[in-house]
Every structure is written in structure tokens, then in C-alpha cells.
């Protein structure tokens, strides 16, 4: 099979699509070379994907603002990349504080989990209107 394999998806920003997209991502990951048996890594990647999409719907667009989310998933033999593009609010991921683990809250874990599960989390604002978030994880060697 020839790598990288790339899937592009575009939806309106809508939590409705979270579960169908997660199903696609999970099935894709389980077919990736080196990930099929690493359920824990697949779980982490699915969660990171889920948090990033959910945040864009909830925070970049919010209840009143609507627009598309454009996703590109790249599977190679070494890494998995999720790229998200949206036209909502500008946002600096690096400003999100660490959660206060001594005082658990009703939220505030999503960005921390994304960072924790992915090796790279790169955000850029393009042309003053597009948010681009690239999440990359190197595929760990399977313990045999």
C-alpha cells in the first residue's frame, strides 16, 4: 500500500458530526501501519481529534457564528497528522493554562489533553481570517 494516505473532510461546524467523524478517524487509525494493535494510542488520538473538533465548534464559532471546519488527516508510516481549518475567532492555544488538578472543574481539560496526547500542536492564523491547527503524533513502536 502506498503512504501517505490522505483524507479531506469538510463539515459545517456542528457537534452533530462529532461521533460520525470519530468513527471515521478510529477506523482509519486502526488500519494505519503500526497502529492496528495499539488500542491505547488509537484511543488517545481519537480523543485529541474529538477535543479539537469540539472546541472549534464551541469556542471558535460558538452558538451564533456558523462556518465550515475543514479537516485533513494524513497517515504515514511514521506519523498521524490532523489538520483543522476554520474561519472563527482567533485563538492562541499556548495561552491556555494548565488545569488546576487540586480543584477539578467542569471543563478546561480539552486543550491540555490534546497537548498531552500529540507530539506537536501548531496553531497559526492565516490571512487574518483562517485558523489552522496542526496536530501531529509520531507512531510509537509497538511493544511486542
Amino acid at each position, binding site marked *: 500500500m502506498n503512504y501517505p494516505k490522505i483524507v479531506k473532510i469538510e463539515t459545517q461546524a456542528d457537534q452533530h458530526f462529532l*461521533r460520525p467523524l470519530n468513527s471515521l478517524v478510529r477506523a482509519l487509525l486502526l488500519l494505519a501501519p503500526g497502529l492496528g494493535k495499539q488500542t*491505547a494510542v488509537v484511543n488517545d488520538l481519537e480523543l485529541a481529534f474529538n477535543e479539537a473538533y469540539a472546541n472549534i465548534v464551541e469556542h471558535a464559532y460558538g452558538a451564533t457564528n456558523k462556518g465550515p471546519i475543514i479537516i485533513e488527516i494524513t497517515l504515514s508510516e511514521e506519523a498521524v497528522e490532523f489538520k483543522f481549518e476554520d474561519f472563527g475567532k482567533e485563538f492562541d492555544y499556548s495561552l491556555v493554562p494548565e*488545569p488546576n488538578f487540586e480543584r*477539578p*472543574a467542569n471543563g478546561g481539560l480539552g486543550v491540555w489533553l490534546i497537548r*498531552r496526547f500529540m507530539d506537536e500542536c501548531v496553531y497559526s492564523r492565516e490571512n487574518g481570517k483562517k485558523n489552522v491547527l496542526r496536530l501531529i503524533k509520531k507512531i510509537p513502536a509497538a511493544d511486542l
Partner: protein
Amino acid sequence: MQIVEVNGVHIIAMSERLDVPVAPVLREAIKNLVEQNYTRVIIDLSKTKFIDSSGCGALVASLRSLIRSKGDMKIAGPSPQAKSLFELTRLHRVFEIYGNVDQALA
């Protein structure tokens, strides 16, 4: 999501996913129970394969609201994904976690 009552304890069995679409449903269910003064709850996660940050948030909010009403909340049967998420977020120190509903009831 299904709720049954056993000896005054309400067991809320979550379905396959505890994520953005169901997190508010769980919070609403807890609110309704607390309003009726039912404050002893077990959240049964034995069917739940996937929890996300909104699910964790709903569990924290539920626990808080039950404790505020002098009740308690136990979590039963979390999957490996749920367990490792609770540990990572230190929530395993905050939640009372049991292997299954029978153990949580005992």
C-alpha cells in the same frame, strides 16, 4: 442512558459514549434527582467505551452537586480508556471508583 433505583440508590447506566452530546443529559438527570432529594447515585460506565473531556466535566459537576446536597456518587465499571483518562487528569483521586455496580452497591 438508563436510570434504575435500588434501595434508594439511583444507578445511571451510560451508553457507549459519554461525550459532548450526552454530557448535558447526564447533568440534567442529576439536577432532576437532586431536586427530588435523591442524592445517592452510581454512574455505571460498564457499557461506555469512550469518555471525553466534556464527559469528565459532567462527572465532576455531578459529584459536586450531589456532595453539596449531602449525597454521594460512585463510578462503576470504567473501561481502560476511562480509567486511564481519570488517572491522567487525577480524577481517580476525586471519584470513588468500583469494578462493577454490585461492588459499588455493597
